[in-house]
């Protein structure tokens, strides 16, 4: 039987959810207007006052916030509570420019940990479980979030943080950890290490994994599930909104339930800002309606996904989001088709190859061309020319069915794709438009 951490909230009727959202949004807009001059100015520029926002149906009137706003307002510009009411900060890894610093009151920490607790229970966790948190602890939200959620559920919590894989495995085995929380790539690494140690899935006590904080594919899920003998659940979140647990997967494993009593989700056309209906792919936008210290209204996540209000067999009523397909920054439009480098990566990984590739887009005779450079790997190579050509065509076919367009695949020498600071340069767009 399906269990819930907060059943009355997680299975609330749509009417109830809307009623909560209406009331909380109105209150939150007023809180922000009163305490965040940065956002108040944005509202004033649109000729808005809090009176214009009477419920969720008015949400679309509010201005967006973007990552650029967060950088501009660093560090205190979006803070909505006096610092004496704040008890914690967390911070993003900040790949470009300034870091994002998010503030929390004790109530903010509580709601965040509740969200993580819902995710753990949805993954089958209870106070009978031993939950190993192998996300990094510290400024990164992964460790603290799941740690707090695990406490709330009543699991025995092992705060290993990331790294020292042998010790991770020792704790899993000696203390009978049943739930593992970490990034999917670290889970894959732990699985790989266990396999090398000759451990079979039934010698590993784990039964579930809660993996997030980076993009991962269905293939990767199946792999990790098989090697560790677990069911693997996706979890989604952003430091800007609290951390992991903004949404989480249930037993159906067909999308992540967004905690709608705390966050209102919209999907918009990244070009026009227009709100899109269920099922249409666009940029995910969140409004946090309960957070006190760092309440973001209509925050553009840059993640591309779809929403679904379809009834879920798990009984939860909160809207589901698909696994993000990529970031708006990475999206390419080629011959009118949206293409994400991550889709190319999925095709290559599916065929058992590495993820060293580069997309070269050009325009020849008014038509876009896509050339995918793939670094040759020992797995892809044989002495037989025909066989290598066949494997190359297989990649072309895989790309055609994934992207809906024909790409040229060029096999190139290992390590020949330009790298910048250790990361491969994924896209070269030579189109002059």
């Amino acid at each position, binding site marked *: 039987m399906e269990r819930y951490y907060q059943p009355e909230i997680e299975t609330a009727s749509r009417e109830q959810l809307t009623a909560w959202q209406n009331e909380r949004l109105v209150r939150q807009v007023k809180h922000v207007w009163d305490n965040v001059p940065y956002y108040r100015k944005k509202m004033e520029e649109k000729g808005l006052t809090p009176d214009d926002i009477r419920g969720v149906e008015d949400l679309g009137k509010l201005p967006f916030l973007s990552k650029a706003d967060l950088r501009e307002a660093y560090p205190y510009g979006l803070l909505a509570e006096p610092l004496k009411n704040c008890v914690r900060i967390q911070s993003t890894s900040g790949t470009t420019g300034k870091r994002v610093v998010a503030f929390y009151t004790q109530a903010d920490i509580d709601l965040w940990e509740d969200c993580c607790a819902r995710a753990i229970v949805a993954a089958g966790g209870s106070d009978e479980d031993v939950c190993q948190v192998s996300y990094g602890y510290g400024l990164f939200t992964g460790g603290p979030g799941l740690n707090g959620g695990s406490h709330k559920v009543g699991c025995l919590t092992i705060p290993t943080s990331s790294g020292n894989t042998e010790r991770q495995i020792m704790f899993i085995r000696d203390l009978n950890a049943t739930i593992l929380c970490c990034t999917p790539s670290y889970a894959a690494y732990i699985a790989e290490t266990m396999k090398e140690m000759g451990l079979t899935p039934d010698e590993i006590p784990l039964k579930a994994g809660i993996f997030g904080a980076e993009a991962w594919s269905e293939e990767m899920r199946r792999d990790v599930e098989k090697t560790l003998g677990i069911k693997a659940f996706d979890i989604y979140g952003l430091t800007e909104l609290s951390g992991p647990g903004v949404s989480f997967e249930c037993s159906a494993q067909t999308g992540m339930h967004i905690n709608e009593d705390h966050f209102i989700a919209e999907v918009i056309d990244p070009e026009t800002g227009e709100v899109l209906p269920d099922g249409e792919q666009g940029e995910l936008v969140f409004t946090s309606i309960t957070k006190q210290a760092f309440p973001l209204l209509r925050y553009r996540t840059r993640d591309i996904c779809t929403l679904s209000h379809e009834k879920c067999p798990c009984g939860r009523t909160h809207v589901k989001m698909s696994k993000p397909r990529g970031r708006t920054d990475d999206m390419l439009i080629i011959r009118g088709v949206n293409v994400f480098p991550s889709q190319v990566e999925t095709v290559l990984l599916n065929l058992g190859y590495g993820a060293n590739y580069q997309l070269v887009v050009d325009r020849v005779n008014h038509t876009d061309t896509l050339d995918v450079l793939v670094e040759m790997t020992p797995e892809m*190579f044989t*002495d037989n*020319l025909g066989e290598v050509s066949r494997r190359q065509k297989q990649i072309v076919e895989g790309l055609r069915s994934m992207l809906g367009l024909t790409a040229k695949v060029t*096999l190139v*020498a*290992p390590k020949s794709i330009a790298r910048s600071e250790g990361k491969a340069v994924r896209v070269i767009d030579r189109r002059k438009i």
Partner: protein
Amino acid sequence: MNVNQISVFLENRPGSLLAMVRVLAEKGVDMRAFSLAETSEFGIARVIVRDVEAASAVLREAGYVHSVTPLIAAAIPDTPGGLEQTLSALNDAGVNVEYMYAFVGSRQEGAYMVFRVTDNDKACEALSGAGVRLVSQEELEQ
């Protein structure tokens, strides 16, 4: 009785073959045979060397994707119909040749030929049966 061929992936662009040959030459790798297969997009260099392990290490170090494949090598009688006789022995045994190329053997014997076939054991048997002398990797190492 096999010889080990090293196959190397090459991009099809000017200079890539030269760069690889140069790497081998600089490290003193002694090549006995060389053949190139290519499409418009990439190429595979096939090399027979005296010391397979050393050559493989040199290529690995230089970052080349390559593989080592056991092939059949035979001394082809330097008489009219010598190659025909060899090929028909393979044909009669039902062994398919995927590719083959020649290289210079000893002064007395003339040409050596390497064959990439579907079944090495069967090919060895067929050629020995037809009186064709097989060449081993050890012999190349001398």
